[in-house]
């Protein structure tokens, strides 16, 4: 009788432990899932702003009227061509962003991957038209965005960096 009562207490204790472990597991799953969201960062925002101001080698009209990355995004959206490079603006934008972000990842040791995408917003309808991703996006993700306006249409450029 005494042993049975002791056993029932043990079973009760084990049940409490199991319930708490299940609660912890649920908490962990929820927090890991919500942890995937980008955290806005001033540093990434500044990086994106300086990338946007970078003077490219693409001149849509004539040299030396070179596009900045911001202008190049507009040219890409308008499906323009770099007259001096004989390349489409979108192709050149992709090449250039890969080069820029590759060099930045090499100079910033803690960055393991990046995601750069541009969304056009017309009448509250969002359409992605440019997407670039490289490396591992498994660490802490910090992001920033800039809005470029091209002929009344909002183009939202977003950069996310994964930090180990």
């Amino acid at each position: 009788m005494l042993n049975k009562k002791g056993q029932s207490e043990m079973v009760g204790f084990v049940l409490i432990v199991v319930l708490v472990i299940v609660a912890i597991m649920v908490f962990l799953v929820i927090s890991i899932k919500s942890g995937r969201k980008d955290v806005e960062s001033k540093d990434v925002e500044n990086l994106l702003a300086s990338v946007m101001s970078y003077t490219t080698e693409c001149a849509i009209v004539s040299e030396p009227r070179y596009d900045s990355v911001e202008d190049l995004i507009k040219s890409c959206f308008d499906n323009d061509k770099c007259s001096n490079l004989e390349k489409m603006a979108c192709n050149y934008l992709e090449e250039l962003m890969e080069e820029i972000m590759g060099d930045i990842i090499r100079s910033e040791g803690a960055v393991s991957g990046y995601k750069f995408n541009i969304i056009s917003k017309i009448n509250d309808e969002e359409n992605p038209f440019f997407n670039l991703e490289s490396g591992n996006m498994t660490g802490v993700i910090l992001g920033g965005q800039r809005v470029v306006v091209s002929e009344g249409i909002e183009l939202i450029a977003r950069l996310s960096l994964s930090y180990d």
Partner: protein
Amino acid sequence: MVMILSFLEKKKFSRSKKNYNNKSFGFHNKGDIRIQQTAFMILAVFFFFVLVGLFFLGYYSKNLKARTHELEKEQTIASLQTLIDMAELSYDATGYEYLSLDEDKILIMSVEDYSTIWPVSSIKIYKVFPAFDKLVKCPNPGCNYYVVYDSGQEEIEEYSTFISLCRKNKEFGSIYDKCEIAKLSAGVENVE
């Protein structure tokens, strides 16, 4: 659930027939053993919940530390903005008002001694893109970093942020704005 309740409920311990002298604390009767069992169980539950509490505390304090670090960094970057906005460094051109420094002004500032005007211990600017293999101090051919000011203090902490380094360039008889990606690094006296 019934078992948990039965575990948690207060029990009546039969001690009436026992004479509590020194000998009685040897846990020889059923009541004493029950007390011992319950005490151990309560202790086990208590330590278990302490462990669970420590886990949650550790988890939240880790997040809190990371967020504090991020906020400190953002505060420092915001204060670097004051430096960027100084007329002695900023680039004046339409469309380049935000985070843009004038390379020509920086070149002059790095050559001449203007040590009295800076609110920080050191100001350095490194070009990030186009990339380079080795550091070459400006003014030199193919240079990639400027030392605008260095007080020579050893106990300083450096904070940095990305900026645009712009200058007026002339090509095909026309002048245009040429900007590169760079990093501004400011050193402040370490008070710790």
